């Protein structure tokens, strides 16, 4: 479903099965039908070692944080992979700096703000450098600034050659990061194609309880039609710069 260096999004209304799909993909639930393949071999046969390759970031950070301190939270997976506590400490400090958690290492995670908790969950998963990263509603309940940070993290993971799967309701976020989008409804896949074609299909989006990105809505209200059908400001900037170039 997802290749290395690619972000694939799953959209769908509440209860459509997005979280269940991610839990199945992470090998935490067994599918009723079919099998999950990881590098062309059944995932079930490769567990629990294969979990090293898969990182799952839960929708609610409170569900994911179970260690007494931020340090222990990040170190949880590393302690299984590294041989000495000194190595673990070095890695934890590095990843904490990357996620701006350096001052919070001795704090209990459940006493942090929602944005900080989200950063701890990301650090605790990305610390062991999984090849596949699954994000469940990564921007839920976050401020615009925190959501932007998450977007950057998703893009960095993609650029680092990881396969990224995002289940989200946030159409702007999906438009910004995804190359492919799948629509899920009551456990069935309704369609899957490039982000541009899915996010422009109003009838398909309606089934997922979603509307096209604001930019598409604005262009449609203004009765403007651009060649590339931009979904994001970045797309629009690219499309308009091409037009200006043509004019010259």
């Amino acid at each position: 479903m997802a290749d290395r260096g690619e972000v694939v999004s799953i959209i769908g209304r509440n209860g459509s099965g997005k979280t269940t799909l991610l839990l199945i993909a992470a090998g935490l639930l067994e599918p009723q039908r079919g099998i999950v393949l990881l590098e062309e071999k059944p995932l079930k046969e490769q567990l629990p070692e294969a979990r090293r390759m898969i990182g799952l970031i839960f929708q609610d950070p409170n569900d994911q944080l179970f260690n007494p301190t931020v340090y222990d939270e990040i170190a949880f997976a590393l302690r299984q992979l590294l041989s000495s506590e000194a190595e673990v400490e070095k890695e934890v400090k590095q990843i904490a700096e990357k996620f701006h958690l350096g001052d919070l290492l001795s704090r209990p995670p459940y006493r942090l703000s929602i944005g900080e908790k989200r950063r701890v969950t990301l650090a605790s998963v990305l610390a062991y450098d999984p090849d596949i990263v699954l994000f469940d509603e990564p921007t839920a309940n976050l401020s615009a600034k925190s959501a932007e940070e998450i977007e950057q993290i998703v893009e960095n993971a993609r650029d680092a050659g990881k396969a990224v799967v995002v289940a989200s309701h946030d159409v702007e976020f999906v438009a910004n990061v995804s190359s492919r989008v799948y629509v899920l409804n009551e456990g069935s896949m309704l369609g899957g194609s490039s982000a541009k074609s899915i996010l422009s299909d109003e009838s398909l989006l309606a089934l997922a309880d979603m509307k096209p990105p604001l930019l598409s809505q604005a262009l449609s209200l203004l009765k403007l039609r651009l060649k590339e059908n931009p979904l994001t400001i970045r797309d629009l900037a690219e499309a308009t710069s091409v037009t200006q170039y043509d004019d010259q």
Partner: protein
Amino acid sequence: MKLKSLTERFLESLAEAIDSLNIGSNPTFINPTIAVLSVLILTGTTAFSHGFTIPILIIAFSILVILLTDSPMRTWAKIPLLVSVWAAIVMVPLPFITPGEPVASLSLGLIELRASGEGLNTALTFVTRAVAAVAIFTSFAFVLGWREIVRGLQGLRIPQELGLLLNMAIIHIPLFLREAVKMLSARESRMMRKIRFKEVWRILSTVVGDLLLRSYERSWVLEKAIKARSFRATELSWETPSEVMGIKDLLLLSFSLCILVLGVFLGA
């Protein structure tokens, strides 16, 4: 924020108290494993001691620990004081039921109660033993906090599952108490008239049901979260980092062992 009902205030305060006890006043004061081992030795010694020497020594040591760590003495002292009152109430019959030389009598109309010297001695020993056991445990719990106490227990190689459960309890009890407060507020916000005492219990019972369901749901997801980051067949991987023993740790351990030896010697 001013909370409405007494129940809500009680639950919020309880969560606050558990939270503040999680982190001690001076968590790095001493190696938690040595501290827990010493507390176990001292509590055991006082529980099986005869006479007043050992319990008084332990009470004095607890006060010293609180003073040395700049912990809030008045807050801490309330607990041993409360326990002393409670133990005194419990031991009231002891002087009257223990056989021995009568030293005082209490006339209650037709009944005359005689207190024996041996009984009074046993009662006082009982109170000092209870206070000493509580004083030593709470002083270290105050200084280190629950988190370090659990770490100390893990250092003593308690089963990993037990360590995980204790850590989970520390994290989730305050979370669920706060969840209960939110649920109560949501229910009370829809009550259009003054709530009578009987109704408070009815509302509380509906909160308990919801809370049980939520805790089940949370534990299900938590199990998945732990599994998701466990790469070994034994799924649980909670390792306690080894810690170096300092001079303070050695002194504490030596003191505890001396008290143990003294206890055995005095007991014999």
